[in-house]
């Protein structure tokens, strides 16, 4: 899948920017704060309806304006026109696909697959478990609508159940216990399915991570992801173990009025040669792992959906040594369409720039084509 062109209005520094893209490499070059990352941000919005850095929509509106609009033309077997419009007075986003309004963002996820390697990815290997769950969930959701619906179902059940737990805590109303049992059953049903799918996902994804990792480093290092969920689960006995654990924590849950057991507390542990990355990894190993995760995501999604995702890379190139920069450029050749921001062209020689590529210079929200 390829994004042919994009049109930005009142989007950050871009009052009115219109760009045609190459279906290979698109290099976006400019100093800090000139508006190069906002081009990636806009592409991400168009593919997911969400913000790349999880910042608020209203911050993306050009100062003094009350709305922004991002329009784009995708090309796969057919052409698709997508448009996202945000109204900051109503604080509302509208998404249109071929002029038809789409009401649920879940209908868009997976339609225009996208993979992004950005600065804040350091949180995936270095941050809290929630960061790793978010990563895994976003990859698995892109590959499967059912997984996404399961997650939404599970998190709704969690919210309902915790509301009931705190009502029981306050009122000590025994009549509510029977209703709690029903919510617990629902939690087990969707939670079990999520755990089993995560087990399978990690098994499959590990193959992709190994492949990607070995393509980026010269050392013989073996990466590995381990799924950490409820104790002693083998994929067959999940519901049973889940129920046991919930029983064990029942009094605690009632006393504290919150959910204490389930896949919303899972973690994914990263290893290199059997050593835990978070505890023993060097900065370089962290970076390589983050890059490998994103390349693995790319090929995983491509395989699962049979669609080539768009690849975004924000300001990562500048901080790589020549060897890895060269390796990544080689890798980028296998990828379809990629958008890469750089502050300058220092590492450009490693990038195999050909006439198929587009070089865009960005200065204070104004763009020029440089080749």
């Amino acid at each position, binding site marked *: 899948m390829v994004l042919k062109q994009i049109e930005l209005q009142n989007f950050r520094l871009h009052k009115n920017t219109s760009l045609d893209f190459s279906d290979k490499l698109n290099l976006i070059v400019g100093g800090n704060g000139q508006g190069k990352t906002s081009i990636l941000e806009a592409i991400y919005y168009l593919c997911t309806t969400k913000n790349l850095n999880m910042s608020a929509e209203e911050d993306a509106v050009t100062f003094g304006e009350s709305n922004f609009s991002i329009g784009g033309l995708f090309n796969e077997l057919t052409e698709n026109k997508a448009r996202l419009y945000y109204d900051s007075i109503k604080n509302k986003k509208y998404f249109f696909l071929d002029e038809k309004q789409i009401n*649920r963002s*879940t209908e868009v996820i997976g339609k225009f697959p996208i993979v992004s390697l950005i600065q804040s990815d350091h949180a995936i290997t270095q941050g809290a478990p929630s960061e790793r769950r978010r990563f895994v969930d976003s990859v698995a959701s892109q590959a499967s609508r*059912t997984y996404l*619906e399961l997650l*939404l*179902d599970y998190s*709704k*059940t969690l*919210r*309902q*159940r915790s*509301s*009931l737990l705190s*009502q029981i805590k306050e009122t000590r109303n025994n*009549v*509510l216990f*029977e*209703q709690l*049992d*029903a*919510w617990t*059953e*629902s939690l087990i*049903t*969707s939670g079990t399915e999520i755990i089993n799918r995560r087990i399978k996902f990690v098994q499959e994804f590990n193959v992709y991570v190994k492949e990607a990792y070995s393509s980026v480093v010269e050392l013989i290092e073996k990466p590995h992801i381990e799924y950490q969920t409820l104790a002693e689960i083998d994929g067959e006995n999940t519901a049973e173990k889940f129920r046991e654990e919930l029983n064990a924590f029942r009094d605690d849950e009632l006393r504290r009025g919150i959910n204490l057991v389930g896949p919303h507390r899972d973690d994914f542990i990263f290893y290199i040669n059997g050593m835990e990355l978070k505890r023993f990894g060097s900065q370089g190993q962290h970076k390589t792992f983050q890059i490998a995760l994103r390349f693995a995501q790319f090929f995983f999604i491509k395989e699962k959906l049979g669609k080539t995702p768009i690849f975004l890379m924000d300001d990562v190139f500048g901080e790589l040594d020549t060897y890895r920069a060269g390796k990544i450029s080689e890798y980028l050749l296998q990828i379809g369409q990629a958008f890469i921001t750089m502050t300058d062209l220092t590492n450009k020689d490693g990038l195999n720039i050909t006439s198929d590529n587009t070089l865009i210079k960005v200065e204070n929200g104004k763009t020029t084509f440089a080749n």
Partner: protein
Amino acid sequence: MLIAEPLQKAIDELSKLPSVGRKTAQRLALHILKSDSENVDALINALGELKSKIRFCSVCFNISVEEKCEICRSQKRDHSVICVVEEVSDVIAIENTNEFNGLYHVLGGVLNPLANVSADSLKIKELVDRIDQHGIKEVILALNPDAEGDTTSLYITRILKEHAVKISRIARGLPIGGDLEFADAATIGRAFIGRISL
């Protein structure tokens, strides 16, 4: 622009209706304004009677003109089977499929602790009484397949465990996240045929 007050009032009232925006409300109001008085009176009457003549069936809580609704009074329906639904609109959706010939029971919602809806604010006790008193043999749960609907089904199943009644649930043939009300008749019909026993 200033709009004549009666017109503005009509637009305001119409735009309170579900899925009617400002533009549609304006178009409807202008259309009514241009219509014959006869038609307008008929509309006013119909709306008035809707509110004054319709009440809830004392047995199944479907809408009704009499104390008992037409479905509950019909001798052609199977009085040993009850289909449990969330809202009156679900009764209409299922009736449109012509696949079901039993009676209904409208709960008036589903369990939803976040919105402060617990079992005693739903017509669950009335359902249990009905089953015990009227020799009901089968209960079909046709709640929306989302977290709240599924949990309510589980809850009712548990409550009815000790009552001599067969319980089944319409199969998940419905689109996930789609409301019963919005699914097309064929889909609901298929779901009825493929219901699963609990």
